[in-house]
């Protein structure tokens, strides 16, 4: 199986504080890797370093064997690396459909064809398919800002899939989503993973969600990797129980 993401010795210092301290791991094609750990352990900082939103102090990130450290998020996205956000990051004034069209448009043609070519080029159909897949049909024409929190979370996830990404990093997709919608979201993610062979890394605090969705789980504490393995292995690891899972 090929390795999609290869992270080697990533470090990130903020002044005197080391937020991420030499983290290394691999993610194989089609895998769903869960990333858990107490608040402030460096999960989101690690994401931002991988995605080029922050420049790591040290270490290397490879996607499909290509070094991408220091690349801008937009370039990385066009290479097929996509993400969702912990806090809502949609375009509130645009409709749900427009949000999705925007999420897909930079993945086809060149910058010039996006000015002089057809304004649509199948994007509306692609957006509508995604709307159908995430069951947002009745909301398609509404401004994203008017949706409920959970619906905006779903939209945020849907946007990450518009470009047909190879690797998706999801930052707390289940946070603040109600139970019905959560089951829906898990099922959708599993389906995309199965059908499109898309690879995921998921930060999540909801243990049930992580344990049922992920094929492997990585636990972080104080900027370091504490354990990595199958969900049941990790759950049984004494160090993990001590640091995070509690009693």
């Amino acid at each position, binding site marked *: 199986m090929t390795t999609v993401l290869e992270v080697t010795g990533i470090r990130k210092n903020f002044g005197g504080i080391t937020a991420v301290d030499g983290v290394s791991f691999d993610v194989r094609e089609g895998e769903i890797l869960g990333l858990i750990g107490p608040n402030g352990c460096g999960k989101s900082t690690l994401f931002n370093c991988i995605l080029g*939103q922050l420049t790591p102090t040290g270490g290397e990130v490879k996607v499909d064997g290509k070094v991408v450290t220091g690349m801008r998020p937009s370039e990385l996205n066009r290479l097929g690396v996509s993400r969702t956000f912990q806090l809502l990051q949609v375009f*509130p004034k645009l409709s749900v459909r427009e949000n999705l069209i925007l999420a897909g448009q930079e993945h086809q043609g060149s910058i010039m064809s996006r000015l002089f070519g057809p304004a649509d080029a199948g994007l509306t159909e692609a957006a509508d398919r995604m709307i159908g897949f995430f069951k947002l049909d009745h909301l398609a024409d509404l401004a994203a800002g*008017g949706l409920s929190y959970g619906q905006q979370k779903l939209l945020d996830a849907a*946007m990450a899939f518009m470009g047909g990404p190879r690797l998706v990093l999801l930052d707390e997709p289940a946070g603040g989503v109600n139970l019905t919608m959560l089951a829906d979201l898990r099922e959708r993610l599993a389906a995309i993973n199965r059908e499109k062979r898309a690879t995921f890394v998921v930060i999540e605090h909801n243990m049930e969600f992580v344990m049922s969705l992920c094929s492997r789980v990585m636990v972080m504490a104080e900027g370091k990797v504490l354990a990595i393995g199958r969900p049941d292995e990790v759950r049984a690891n004494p160090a993990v129980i001590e640091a995070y899972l509690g009693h």
Partner: protein
Amino acid sequence: MKALRKYWRLALGIMAVAGLIVVPLNFNRYGLFILSQWTVMTIAAMGLNLTLGYAGQVSLAQGAFVGIGAYSAAIMTTQGMPLMAALGVAVVLCFAIGWLLGYPALRVQHHYLAFVTLAFSTLAFLVFRNEDWLTRGIYGISNIPRPTVFGVATNRPLPFYYVCLGSLGIVSAAMWWLIRSPWGRAFLALRENPIRALSLGIDTRRYTLMAFAIGSALGGVAGTLYAPLTQYIDPVPFNLSLSLDLLMMVIVGGAGFFFGPFLGAMIAVLLPEWLRFTEGYYLMLYAAAVIGLLIYSPSGIFGILDRLLAERRTKAASALRAVAKSGLEAAP
């Protein structure tokens, strides 16, 4: 319902265009001058609306680009070159300078960016005033010729008004198409949420520079019309207050609304004429009206309309949510 609204809009548009063509036929010289000035200012304000309203980048330099366009036209046409050549030079020059002025926007935003562009505005004014060899300094450039279009000399006010109106038509069509293209969507994304835009593959750096360059180029287009309209230019009209005026037009009309600049420019150009009877009080009245408007609706006059529409949409949305919720509760 939707189709009906579309036809209604189309009819309104045709009436407005017909009105702009027919009504000025019996205007006097002064009326035509004011109306031509409105078209020129609308073009400049549309450029700023792209930079500020759609892409969300504050600029206090649009007046300087009008000046660059006007001086290009004045210098070249008084040397016997055609206005079209001057237009080309003005557009390329303003596009390039606008692109460069966009670089600070990659580092600073909002009022800091306003200060950077303000500094550029001042710099441009000093060049217009002090570089005598090029601009004839405070003496200005007079006897700027008007072009001959399709064999028709436009020395008289009416034909030149039609040149201005035609230019406004072309610029409006191009802008309409631009903001509906994927570029237009990318500009909106830049304004609404640059971080999210970046994570969706949108090259925010390139689009920011483009927003500045295209907006500035339109300032240049406006300037190329301004010079033959007044037939005399000196540095004074292109000082900082023109940039502030243009900013006000965009904001009063409604930043980020396609027709905002049309309305904003109309108010800024025509209101002083209508309030002429108040003599010295007109600026005070104008200022008071603008303050009142911005307190009531910070998003300008079109913002008021938009708010009314949004209220209706929100009601529809909550109705839909209620339906969806009752469906879920009934399902289990």
